């Protein structure tokens, strides 16, 4: 390339600058990184900037943000060397947008050069053209929709609104149609963002809100600033981003029939409004036409489908029009009928009568009467006609309505018949029939009602129940209550509309009567109840009979079901007709296996019956037949084998008679009497046994009634008082005393005691025992008398049984026994004491030795010069003490050796133990035994015989010493005595030795009499000890020690008596 000259260059530069500055197109030059270096005047003007103001700004400052991404792509393409021609949206200084077309290329490989042309106008035209095309489509769609005949108006309108939304920028579009009766606009179609037509804005009163205002003023309303329209909810409009609104009244023949409206999110240009206005007009016309069409269709449909005949008759009696019902009722096709006249089908209107009739009709304008029509087949039927005259286009027509009243005539006749029938029933029925109105006033009553009330019809009709009740001579009960009850039932009947039935009782002429009353509502033609009909049947007798029967039935059923007897009923063929549970159980079959079966069949399935094969079925059968023959009930006892056990049954067979008096069933009732028989036998045996005892027992037995009269006495009783049964029976004790040679003395003290005992027994209600002196002459005997009560089956005491046993001998023996026991105890004691004799002697010897020595010492103290009186006095004091000590030992020994009767006193056990230990003291020492005592300080007192308790202690201590003496081998010789409280109410004394012990065999026997382990023992000590302790209410036993020896211990009950 040739390098240009400087002048040439300058000229070129200037030329280019002029071109640049004056170009119509806007020219922008920017660096490759997007900053403007040069913008011409057109460019600055286009974007509204001051000259030079854009220099240094970037492309991003003027490019619409949405175009930025595209710009980056385009920029790449340009850097690659491509020239571009694209459409963009630029942002002006004031923020408005401007559509432009930009031709751009790279300059010197480092600048963008862009030629920018404003295409606003072109864009607008394009959009307008687009809109107009859509509006044309909209108009076409609306036209097409509105002329579619088949669809319903609502569907058609909806499709028009959908067309509006589709073909404009409308957010939604709606149509309201005027409901003239209510003067309300009803939403019929809604398309776009709202499609519901039942919502809150579905109804506007004319004049109310914008839509109503449009209808009221017949004026369209339009705004591109929806927020400025009053009565539009601003919030809602803002939320939906709505901008514009247009509403047009739908007007036909100067009458508003509705409103069409559209809402848009952008401003609506005039062309949109025009399009909407024009389709509104089309829609209005369409709605009107569609409505007219629908109405016509409906009319035609109605005329054709009414049951009544409808026809239009010309003045000359020709048929001009006849509906389907008319043709059908007359039996002609429409073509045939339209060729006929009234004369042909109505015998009452021949040609000669027509003129008069027609004139009459013309004068009256309307006629209604009954006539007859003749069908094509010649059948004549009654009709009801209504005629009228109307003029149309100067021509007179007769419009005739006819109705076949054959059915009505027939039902009228039937009704009449029925009514007569009902009247007859009403007049002659034995039931009480009455009809009351809603206030309870009598409308109609029959003669029975009159009779019951004892009132004449004229005194009944129109009266309320209360009035009737008060004026009736036969009804006396509490009217108020009864009538309220009636009213309740009546209103219930009215409310539910269904008849009610109940039984009611009241007193008529002093007699309680029961009625079965049925109440039913009576309706007028409109279906409203206006009266209640009551029908009461006197069921007093029936009710009474029913009740009796039911009671009896229930009773019999209960007996039948619950009887332990086996009951079954057979018919003449031997089939079981009825069987109770007892029968089912014995056969071990269920009801269904029994009823309907013959005996032979039962024999086949019942194990129980099979056991009794010796009973032949033939015999049974014959028996039954004989029974039918004689008609007499039979009773017998029979034995059957049941589960291998012989059982006795008491069987009653009786025939049952039918109404004509012939036997037709046999009832068999079997009772298992095995147990009863067994019980009878047992009872008899028992009775014999008791009788034998009663007769032979030595005790005296008598039974007295509660008045004290003897009823039964036994032989011993008779013998003892030497009187016969006859003499005793029925007498009181007093009377017997007089009679008996065996009784003597003043009876009253004895009898008082006996009587008191009787009373005591009665009060106690249980057997009582007492010992009493026998009142028999010459006897000092003692009797043990037992008394108890005898009761009747209801548990009431009826008599007193007295058993007296002569225990004189027993008493004597007891006394002797006690004496011997004492002897024995004494002997044992003496023996024990004997064994201790040397020890006891030592116990006495010691103090004696002391006394002697003290005496000597005393003399010596006195012989001194001067005599030592102090020492002498001390010696004498010791002599006295030792003398007492020796005396005590002797006293104790004597007490133990004395034979004394038992004497019970309160005992301090510790003290007794201590005293007893004194007696064995020397024995213990002699054998070098360590004696330990451990006495409980808080030991309670015991009651008993001191000597006897000491004897037991002595026995145990001596045994202990001897056991220790016998023991071989080492170990300490120890004897310990312990006293303590034992269990709740006992004192325990334990004597523990370290002696030889006992083997297991001996342990069981040591308490037996004459058992001893000692060479010189008698074997009485422990035996007597145990009997002593047990007589005191305590226990004596032995237990082997853990180590050596045994422990013998006994308990005594604590003395509970408090001093």
């Amino acid at each position, binding site marked *: 390339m040739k390098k240009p000259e400087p002048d040439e260059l300058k000229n070129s530069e200037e030329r280019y600058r002029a071109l640049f500055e004056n170009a119509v197109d806007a020219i922008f030059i920017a660096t490759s990184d997007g900053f403007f270096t040069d913008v011409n005047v057109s460019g600055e003007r286009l974007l509204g900037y001051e000259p030079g103001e854009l220099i240094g700004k970037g492309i991003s400052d003027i490019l619409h943000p949405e175009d930025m991404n595209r710009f980056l792509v385009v920029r790449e393409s340009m850097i690659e060397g491509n020239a571009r021609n694209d459409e963009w949206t630029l942002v002006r200084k004031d923020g408005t947008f401007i559509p432009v077309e930009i031709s751009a290329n790279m300059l010197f490989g480092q600048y963008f050069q862009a030629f920018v042309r404003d295409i606003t106008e072109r864009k607008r035209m394009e959009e307008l053209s687009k809109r107009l095309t859509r509006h044309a489509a909209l108009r076409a769609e609306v036209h097409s929709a509105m002329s579619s005949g088949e669809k319903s108006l609502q569907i058609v309108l909806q499709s028009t609104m959908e067309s509006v939304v589709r073909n404009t920028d409308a957010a939604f579009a709606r149509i309201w149609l005027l409901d003239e009766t209510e003067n309300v606009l009803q939403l019929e179609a809604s398309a776009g963002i709202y499609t519901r037509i039942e919502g809150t804005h579905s109804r506007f009163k004319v004049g109310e809100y914008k839509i109503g205002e449009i209808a009221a003023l017949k004026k369209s309303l339009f705004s591109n600033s929806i927020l400025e329209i009053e009565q539009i909810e601003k919030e809602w409009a803002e939320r939906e981003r709505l901008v514009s609104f247009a509403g047009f009244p739908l007007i036909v023949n100067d009458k508003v029939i509705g409103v069409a409206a559209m809402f848009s999110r952008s401003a609506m240009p005039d062309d949109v409004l025009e399009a909407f206005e024009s389709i509104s007009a089309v829609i209005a016309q369409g709605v009107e036409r569609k409505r007219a069409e629908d109405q016509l269709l409906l009319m035609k449909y109605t005329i054709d489908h009414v049951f009544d005949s409808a026809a239009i008759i010309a003045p000359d009696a020709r048929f001009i029009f006849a509906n389907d019902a008319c043709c059908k009722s007359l039996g002609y096709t429409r073509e045939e009928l339209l060729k006929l006249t009234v004369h042909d089908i109505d015998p009452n209107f021949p040609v000669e009568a027509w003129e008069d009739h027609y004139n009459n009709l013309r004068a009256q304008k309307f006629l209604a009467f009954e006539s007859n029509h003749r069908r094509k087949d010649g059948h004549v039927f009654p009709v009801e006609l209504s005629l009228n005259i109307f003029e149309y286009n100067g021509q007179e027509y007769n419009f005739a309505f006819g109705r076949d009243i054959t059915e009505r005539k027939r039902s009228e006749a039937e009704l009449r018949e029925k009514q007569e029938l009902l009247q007859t029933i009403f007049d002659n029925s034995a039931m009480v029939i009455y009809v009351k109105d809603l206030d309870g006033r009598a409308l109609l009553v029959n003669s029975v009602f009159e009779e019951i009330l004892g009132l004449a019809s004229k005194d009944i009709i129109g009266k309320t129940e209360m009035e009737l009740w008060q004026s009736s001579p036969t009804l006396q009960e509490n009217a108020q209550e009864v009538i309220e009850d009636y009213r309740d039932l009546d209103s219930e009947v009215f409310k539910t509309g269904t008849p009610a039935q109940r039984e009611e009782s009241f007193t008529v002429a002093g007699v309680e009567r029961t009625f079965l009353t049925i109440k039913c509502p009576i309706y007028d033609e409109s279906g409203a109840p206006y009266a209640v009909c009551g029908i009461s049947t006197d069921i007093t007798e029936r009710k009474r009979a029913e009740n009796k029967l039911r009671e009896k039935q229930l009773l019999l059923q209960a007996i039948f079901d619950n009887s332990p007897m086996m009951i079954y009923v057979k018919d003449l063929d031997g089939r079981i007709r009825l069987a109770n549970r007892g029968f089912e159980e014995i056969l071990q079959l269920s009801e269904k296996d029994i009823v309907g079966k013959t005996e032979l069949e039962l024999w086949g399935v019942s194990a129980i019956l099979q056991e009794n094969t010796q009973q032949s079925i033939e015999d049974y059968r014959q028996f039954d037949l004989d029974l039918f023959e004689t008609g007499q009930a039979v009773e017998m006892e029979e034995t059957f084998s049941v589960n291998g056990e012989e059982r006795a049954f008491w069987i009653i067979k009786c025939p049952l008679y039918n109404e004509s008096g012939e036997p037709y069933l046999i009832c068999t009732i079997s009772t298992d009497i095995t147990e009863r028989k067994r019980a009878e036998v047992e009872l008899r045996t028992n009775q014999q046994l008791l009788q034998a005892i009663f007769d032979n027992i030595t005790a005296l037995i008598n039974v007295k009634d509660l008045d004290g009269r003897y009823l039964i006495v036994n032989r011993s009783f008779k013998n003892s008082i030497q009187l016969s049964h006859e003499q005793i029976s029925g007498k009181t004790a007093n009377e017997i005393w007089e009679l008996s040679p065996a009784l003597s003395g003043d009876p009253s003290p004895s009898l008082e005691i006996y009587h008191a005992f009787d009373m005591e027994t009665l009060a106690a209600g249980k057997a009582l025992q007492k010992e009493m002196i026998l009142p028999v002459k010459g006897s000092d005997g003692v009797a043990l008398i037992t008394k108890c009560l005898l009761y009747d089956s209801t548990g009431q005491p009826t008599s007193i049984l007295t058993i007296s046993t002569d225990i004189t001998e027993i008493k004597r023996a007891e006394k002797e026994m006690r004496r011997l026991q004492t002897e024995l105890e004494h002997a044992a004691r003496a023996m024990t004491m004997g064994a201790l004799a040397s020890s006891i002697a030592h116990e006495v010897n*010691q*103090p004696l*030795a*002391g*006394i*002697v*020595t*003290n005496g*000597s*010492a*005393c003399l*010596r*103290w006195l012989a*001194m010069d001067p005599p*030592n009186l102090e*020492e002498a006095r*001390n*010696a004498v004091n*010791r002599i006295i*003490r*030792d003398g007492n*000590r020796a005396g005590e030992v002797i006293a104790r020994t004597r007490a133990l050796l004395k034979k004394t009767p038992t004497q019970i006193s309160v005992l301090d056990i510790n003290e007794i133990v201590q005293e007893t230990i004194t007696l064995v003291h020397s024995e213990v*020492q002699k054998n070098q035994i360590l004696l330990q005592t451990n006495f409980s300080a808080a030991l309670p007192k015991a009651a008993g015989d001191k000597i006897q308790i000491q004897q037991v202690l002595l026995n145990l201590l001596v045994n202990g010493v001897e056991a220790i003496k016998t023991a071989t081998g080492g170990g300490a010789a120890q004897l310990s005595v312990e006293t303590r409280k034992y269990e709740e109410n006992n004192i325990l004394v334990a004597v523990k030795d370290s002696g030889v012990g006992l083997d297991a065999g001996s342990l069981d026997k040591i308490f037996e009499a004459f058992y001893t382990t000692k060479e010189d023992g008698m074997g009485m000590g422990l035996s007597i000890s145990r009997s002593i302790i047990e007589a005191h209410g305590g226990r004596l036993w032995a237990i082997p020690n853990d180590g050596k020896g045994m422990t013998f211990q006994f308990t005594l009950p604590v003395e509970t008596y408090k001093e």
Partner: protein
Amino acid sequence: MMDESQAIVFVVDDDQSVREALDSLFRSTGLKVQAFASAQEKLVCR
């Protein structure tokens, strides 16, 4: 021969009566007496 005034008689007897009587008798002769219930007691006391 021991000086009589120096001699002590030990009385050992488990019976109190005998023990006390002997104690008194010996003392009435002018002897010094010590009485014990057992030999063991005597030994313990010494």
